[in-house]
């Protein structure tokens, strides 16, 4: 089933069963920016170990994009809201 959600205000399309990481990387090459200033990242391990796919929900909850399924209408940010 087609779904849509938002990342940093932009609409991203997905299918049911897609992880956030899958959907974002199918729509573009980057998942998020490194907080240490060395450019874009796309996650790495896909098994909840490397912690390089963090995103935040509109409730300030931190998620791992590789282990979170897309829900219709979810609103995500690639930056930690507590730091912005």
């Amino acid at each position: 089933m087609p779904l849509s959600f938002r990342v940093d205000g932009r609409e991203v399309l997905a299918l049911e069963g897609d992880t956030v990481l899958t959907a974002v990387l199918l729509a573009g090459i980057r998942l998020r920016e490194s907080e240490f200033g060395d450019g874009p990242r796309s996650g790495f391990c896909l098994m909840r170990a490397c912690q390089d796919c963090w995103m935040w929900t509109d409730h300030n909850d931190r998620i791992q994009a590789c282990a979170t399924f897309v829900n219709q209408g979810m609103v995500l940010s690639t930056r930690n809201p507590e730091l912005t």
Partner: protein
Amino acid sequence: MTTIVIVGAGPAGVRAAECLVAAGCRPIILDENDRSGGQIYRRQPPGFVRSAQTLYGTEAAKAEALHRSFDTLAGKVDYRPGTIAWGLHAGVIHTVKAGRVDRIAFDRLILATGATDRIMPVAGWTRPGVFSMGGAQIALKFQGCVPGRRPALVGTGPLLYLLANQYLKAGVTPAGVFDTTPFRRQLRLVGGLAWDPRTLLIGLRYRLELVRWGVPVRCGIDPLAIEGDPAVTGFVYAKSGKRHVIACDGVALGHGLRSETQLAELAGVSFAFDRRTRQWLPQRDEEGRTPLGTVYLAGDGAGIGGADVAEIEGKLAAWALLHDLNAAVDDGERTRALRQLRRAARFRAALDAGFPWPHDIAARLDDGVVVCRCETLTAGELRRVAAEGAPDLGRAKALSRIGMGRCQGRYCGSACAEILSAALGCDIADVGRLRPQAPTKPLHVDDVEASL
């Protein structure tokens, strides 16, 4: 009532649970994943309809059997999916699930924590489009995706050849397989022929398939860089002193596996350095007992043995635990499992000899190569603290923050040890290891506060 906790629901954890349930126990099973199977037999999301044969290939029957076994345990175990075990102290294991922390006081604990990829960094490995070898396999199994239309597979180990074949089957022709192990060194795999001819023949078939499809296989390479800005456009390597560039739009990177040993260490299990794999491993007897008396180890988390060994070790650990609680254990089955384990160990020795961790690359890494992807610390930074007098990894960590990032050294630890030992000119065992601390995976302070 005895509280038994199993951490992990891969091949080791599932078989351990099965044996405990058969003896009338009701173990608590903590699983980071949403469904059982671990990484190797990871199940696709609900509603996905690819067959077991499509997902698991030659190992389909084993994967299906494991899933079926676990499904029949429903109601007989306290299964807690999506749960991370992040701390262990004084007989209490600490967990977090969807922002809620919890603690479980256990009488007996089986750690079946599995493994992650072992990574030797290469310039550009943090670029988008570069994934760990295991991650690149999960993308296919779990999501039906491949990193790029023409990915390069870089590193060493059987997983390179398995994944290249899985990609071919999925309709993706890899740009090539780039193995750091020279071909003549891989001939040592033949030493395993007597112990597991099936696996060896499967490996041979994978090679032949790559030849048939015209996929370049280059062995004995020195990885130089993953290029792109920011998306991956090429992989640069040296072979026999010549520099080569291959066009690709994604990379799977991995040099074998490393054990997830943090919880064993927090439990107080003693560790010893394993020269063959150049890893520190928790000490246990053949059946998985540790000297602690309450903690048992099974599967790749205690030393890399692969999925078949993990199933055997899971059973043995459960039987050892039951035996120690004065429950009856079938000695015939136990003896048979031990015999299988010894046979598998002979095969593993050949596999380790044929696909060694390429430790010598560490000394040749340019100073600018990022080693810690969490905080972008470089090989040069590590060498600087070595020159300033850091005699081991513990001190290097304090001076440079290496291993203190989010992944807690999982992806830099192996390479850091090699870089440091090369810089200091000392034996690898003498640089020690990055010691884990709770939380072993990042935890939100608000979540802990809310539960106090």
